[in-house]
């Protein structure tokens, strides 16, 4: 029996959530291509935008992909993972739909105020504030309200997973939490803690300020609250990919997970360490003492540990799968993996790119070396490997496996699907390596024009290659990424148009037990209260004093009035 037959109501929610996610992905992807071509000065005359519109596109690209596509995909994936692993329907479908509509209304409000940048007939004047919306640059109140509703919608979605878990717990006292549910719950505990920062920023400061109820806000305080949320949000994106890599990828490789307890330990470490690290985005901010930046850096470096453990466990699981399929040798087993199955190849390539992204992230995390690359093109080069591939390509790959199960429709255009992850991989390799190198040469991010063209001198001095060659790679890479995105959407659209039950699905949702299960592991791993309490203490230690030092001269001072864009 397919998932859709067992849990028809949860499957319907997941379908709609994926539907909105893929719409956001499509629009955000178009914006990405336009932006890359404009910035690299490729066919610029043919593009329907000017330099000021570039920032509208950039805001749309960031909000639609980093906030909307991610949140909806995560809700869909977690709806599936919770019900599947607890073997019961959601505790409240009504609440789950409530979360969906909150997310939709939030998205419509924010997207309308952004798109007003090109279409002034739309309500809510322009909000070209980028997805970091640093005050005192001010967006329309609808933008902030939309952002708040997206956060609140995600909270409600998370509440449904907890309610479902508590129901299960009543029926199964003393049992270990099923692994996928454990991952969903720890991810959301981290998320509840992390989103407090942005919720306070938006609801207490930015909404009243944009409505004129308060005159000023302290830009350093709102920035700090943003980054309180702004780093853990990347783990909110990453952990769902980890859920897939730990629990589904080994099966797709023909084997089973290497170690269940280690997977739990990894998620506990993320719950503890994801939030008290936000100052590493503010290494070069004035107004924050160096010591607090150092504490944040130490925590950030410790976060390498769960990711390095994941690398071990995932690769070990893949090797086990490959050997089950007849592979052998030290590295020869790699050839025995099912590289022609897009669900597998997409996840595996996403994991590989994440390793590269992890290494560039270590540079970002180094307090002193960060000076070289802060706010250069290096940074978007880095996060297009992480959220732009580790997350996005994993979601696309798992969709090839999951969409048939939640729709009851066989995957269409299978050959297109087979090639798609490779096209994405090549495109991202071109784009991201060029962005990293451009960043090392000092090219700034977030700018519409290649700077210093008319200055007569070339201040950017790349170590390897030339600026022109990097631009070309970025343009070709982003075009390939767009082609890969279009291929994915064709497969999804074709599958959606297919008939339910017309053909066997060719996939099944059964997931084999891990090689070493949770039985022998310490029970304290499942004690979510203990881990949450420690996480709160760590956040209080990392943020208590710095926030106090920022607000001790007054909550709203030094204060800035709103400056509309």
């Amino acid at each position, binding site marked *: 029996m397919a998932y859709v037959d067992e849990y028809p109501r949860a499957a319907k929610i997941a379908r709609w959530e994926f539907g909105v996610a893929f719409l956001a992905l499509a629009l955000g992807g178009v914006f990405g291509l336009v932006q890359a071509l404009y910035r690299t000065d490729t066919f610029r005359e043919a593009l329907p935008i000017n330099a000021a519109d570039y920032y509208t596109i950039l805001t749309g690209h960031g909000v639609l992909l980093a906030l909307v596509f991610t949140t909806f995909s995560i809700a869909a994936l977690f709806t599936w993972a919770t019900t599947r692993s607890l073997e019961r329907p959601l505790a409240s479908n009504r609440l789950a739909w409530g979360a969906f509509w909150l997310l939709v209304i939030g998205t419509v409000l924010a997207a309308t105020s952004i798109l007003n940048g090109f279409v002034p007939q739309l309500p809510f004047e322009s909000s070209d504030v980028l997805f970091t919306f640093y005050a005192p640059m001010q967006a329309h109140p609808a933008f902030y309200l939309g952002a708040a509703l997206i956060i609140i919608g995600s909270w409600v979605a998370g509440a449904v997973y907890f309610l479902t878990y508590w129901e299960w717990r009543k029926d199964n006292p003393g049992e270990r939490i099923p692994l996928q549910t454990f991952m969903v719950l720890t991810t959301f505990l981290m998320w509840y803690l992390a989103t407090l920062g942005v919720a306070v920023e938006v609801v207490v400061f930015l909404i009243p300020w944009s409505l004129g109820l308060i005159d000023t806000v302290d830009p350093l305080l709102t920035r700090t609250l943003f980054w309180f949320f702004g780093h853990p949000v990347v783990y909110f994106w990453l952990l769902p990919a980890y859920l897939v890599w730990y629990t589904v990828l080994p099966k797709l490789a023909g084997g089973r997970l290497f170690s269940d307890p280690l997977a739990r330990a990894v998620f506990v470490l993320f719950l503890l360490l994801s939030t008290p690290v936000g100052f590493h985005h503010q290494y*070069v901010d004035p107004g924050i003492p160096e010591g607090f930046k150092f504490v944040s850096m130490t925590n950030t470096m410790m976060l390498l540990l769960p990711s390095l453990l994941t690398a071990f466990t995932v690769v070990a699981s893949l090797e086990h799968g490959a050997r089950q399929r007849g592979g052998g040798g030290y590295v020869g087993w790699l050839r025995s993996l099912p590289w022609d199955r897009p669900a597998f190849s997409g996840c595996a390539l996403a994991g590989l790119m994440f390793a590269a992204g992890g290494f560039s992230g270590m540079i970002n995390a180094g307090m002193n070396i960060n000076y070289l690359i802060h706010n250069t093109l290096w940074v978007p080069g880095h996060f297009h490997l992480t959220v732009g591939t580790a997350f996005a390509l994993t979601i696309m790959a798992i969709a090839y496996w999951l969409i048939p199960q939640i729709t009851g429709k066989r995957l269409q255009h299978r050959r297109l699907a087979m090639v798609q992850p490779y096209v994405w991989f090549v495109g991202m390799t071109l784009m991201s390596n060029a962005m990293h190198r451009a960043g090392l040469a000092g090219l*700034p*991010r977030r700018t519409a024009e290649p700077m210093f063209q008319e200055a007569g001198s070339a201040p950017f001095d790349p170590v390897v290659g030339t600026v022109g060659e990097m631009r070309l790679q970025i343009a070709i890479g982003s075009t390939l990424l767009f082609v890969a995105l279009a291929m994915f959407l064709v497969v999804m659209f074709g599958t959606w148009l297919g008939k339910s039950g017309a053909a066997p699905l060719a996939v099944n949702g059964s997931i084999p037990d891990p090689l070493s299960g949770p039985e022998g592991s310490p029970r304290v791993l499942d004690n979510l209260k203990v881990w949450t309490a420690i996480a709160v203490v760590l956040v209080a230690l990392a943020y208590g004093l710095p926030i106090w030092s920022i607000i001790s001269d007054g909550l709203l001072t030094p204060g800035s009035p709103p400056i509309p864009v």
Partner: protein
Amino acid sequence: MEIHRFEKLWLAASLVLILGFVATVVYGAVGAGVAMVNDDGGTVDPGDITASENFREPGVYEAGDGEYAVYVEARQFSFRPGSSQPIEVPADTRVTFYVTSPDVTHGFSVVGTNINTMVVPGQVARITTVFEEPGTYHIVCHEYCGAAHHNMQGQIRVVDQSQFDASATGPAAIDDPAAEVSD
């Protein structure tokens, strides 16, 4: 719970790597003397940046003993001084930049160097450096600050001390910063 031998080795190697990274930064700060942007610059009122002791009228000042202080106002969409007139400082002397913004958040990054700071309204970013060689350096605003953000750039001209003393923007003019700032 059984942890595989290889997994234990990997765990140990990971911890060594992490400690190594932290150690390099500690060495950078303590041994090599890499100073970070921090809260030493103090705060100002974004509505009146020169009202407090922490910031002066934008310009180049001799800070005594062959040291120089450069006060830069970053605003939509120029650096003052820096954009319409280059910042001129002598080579091989300690130069401390004080940068703040009366409007939105900006960036202040000198291409090809490790001078790189955010400019947050209400805060003064303070960075000390030594330009060893004469030459022209480019300043980029690397934080999006509005529709014409991409036009926000500037220059630092590093000249020999003798040339600096002889030029119009030398110490003689610095006593009257208003005369030194043309825009």
